[in-house]
């Protein structure tokens, strides 16, 4: 398991944050390389020629792409500490199902919240809350999605929390009012050092989003 670890990333990326959190949970030292997505590095294009996207995890010179695959890889390689996926195959399949649900839904619907206005935006807000409510259902009364311990699904979802404030500002709504249990869970996660040091400040995310909106010509 020894060997250089490099992460090619972009600071506001929820997907990159997942990998940062996983690496921090396992206390793995790594080199963080910030990418300019308008001017992607040779290294990025070489290491992820298929998608040309961040995050890319490079371990001993070999690339692993796609954030959830990276989290699983980190969990398998550094399997002597802070297990992320549960041991039981059915629980693992359930965690993967919900992580896949997050991937299918949250990013695209969230994007529609800040990119659109009027009725389209209202629909996006409603759909986003519905997704979060389903996730609240999966959380139930547990401290974490992983049960008593922070795990794979917690890692998959927590990065989206730092974007909530930006969406709320753009959409003029409160996620906490609709999903108090989920916000309580998120605040619990934020008390963990691995999470707190991996997620950017929500105000910075909002400022970044305002810049993006300007670039897209959206008011």
């Amino acid at each position, binding site marked *: 398991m020894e060997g250089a670890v490099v992460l090619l990333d972009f600071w506001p990326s929820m997907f990159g944050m997942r990998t940062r959190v996983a690496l921090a949970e396992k206390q793995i030292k790594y080199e963080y390389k910030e990418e300019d997505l308008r001017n992607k590095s040779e290294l990025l294009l070489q290491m992820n020629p298929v998608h040309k996207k961040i995050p890319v995890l490079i371990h001993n010179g070999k690339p692993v792409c796609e954030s959830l695959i990276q989290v*699983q890889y980190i969990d398998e390689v550094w399997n002597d500490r802070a297990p992320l996926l549960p041991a039981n195959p*059915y629980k693992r399949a359930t965690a993967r199902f919900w992580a896949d649900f997050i991937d299918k839904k949250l990013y695209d619907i969230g994007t529609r919240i800040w990119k659109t206005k009027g009725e389209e935006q209202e629909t996006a807000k409603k759909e986003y809350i519905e997704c979060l409510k389903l996730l609240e259902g999966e959380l139930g009364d547990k401290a974490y999605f992983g049960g008593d311990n922070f795990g794979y699904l917690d890692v998959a979802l927590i990065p989206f929390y730092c974007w909530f404030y930006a969406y709320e500002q753009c959409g003029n709504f409160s996620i906490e009012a609709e999903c108090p249990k989920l916000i309580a869970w998120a605040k619990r996660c934020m008390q963990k050092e691995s999470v707190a040091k991996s997620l950017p400040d929500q105000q910075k995310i909002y400022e970044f989003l305002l810049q993006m909106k300007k670039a897209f010509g959206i008011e």
Partner: protein
Amino acid sequence: MSKAELLLLDFWVSPFCLRVKIALNEKCLQYEARPEDLFGGKSELLLNSNPIYKKVPVFLHDGKPLCESTIIVNYIDETWSSPPLLPPCSYGRAQARFWADYIDKKVFDACGNVWRCKGEVPVEAKNEFIEILKQLEEALGDKDYFNGATFGFVDVIAIPLTCWFFSAEKIGGFTVAEECPKFSSWMKRCLQRESVAKVMPEPEKVYEFVLMFRKMQGID
């Protein structure tokens, strides 16, 4: 293990259901494949077992439901370890998951963008589909299977989609054999495996289904 303990809610032409059947066959497991009537009315069991997506496949192991074909195949591999579908080393597994994810994101939709076309198929749609197969050819390299010397996870994920290619070929006016000969050889190799051959529908039958579907959707 008695048949009733392993139940698959199925639809004969679904490549996603085929993935599960092939995985179960590879593990020499007995199971019941229960057909769902996706057009007439989905069963209570399906709607209760997969309330989020209401789709097939749903795999029930001792009554506990699992959804999403790639996740189901992963579960089958972890629960019944022999023969293994995923490679033993972590990096190999990450690579296998990457290509399974690529196939999931790209192949069925690109194929559909060809066979769903009304009238002449735009060259962009054909090219996009071929480019994706060429990318997979590159991933395959000189190996017999995506997994290496033996049939494995990525092969299970990919091969079911290929019974839909004939429909794209007929409607798009091209052949995979001509455009991607390596991929075509890999297809033939997989189709020789009993686990695959005994469940894959004839491409001509899939084409009949596609034509019926096109009529239903008002394309033809």
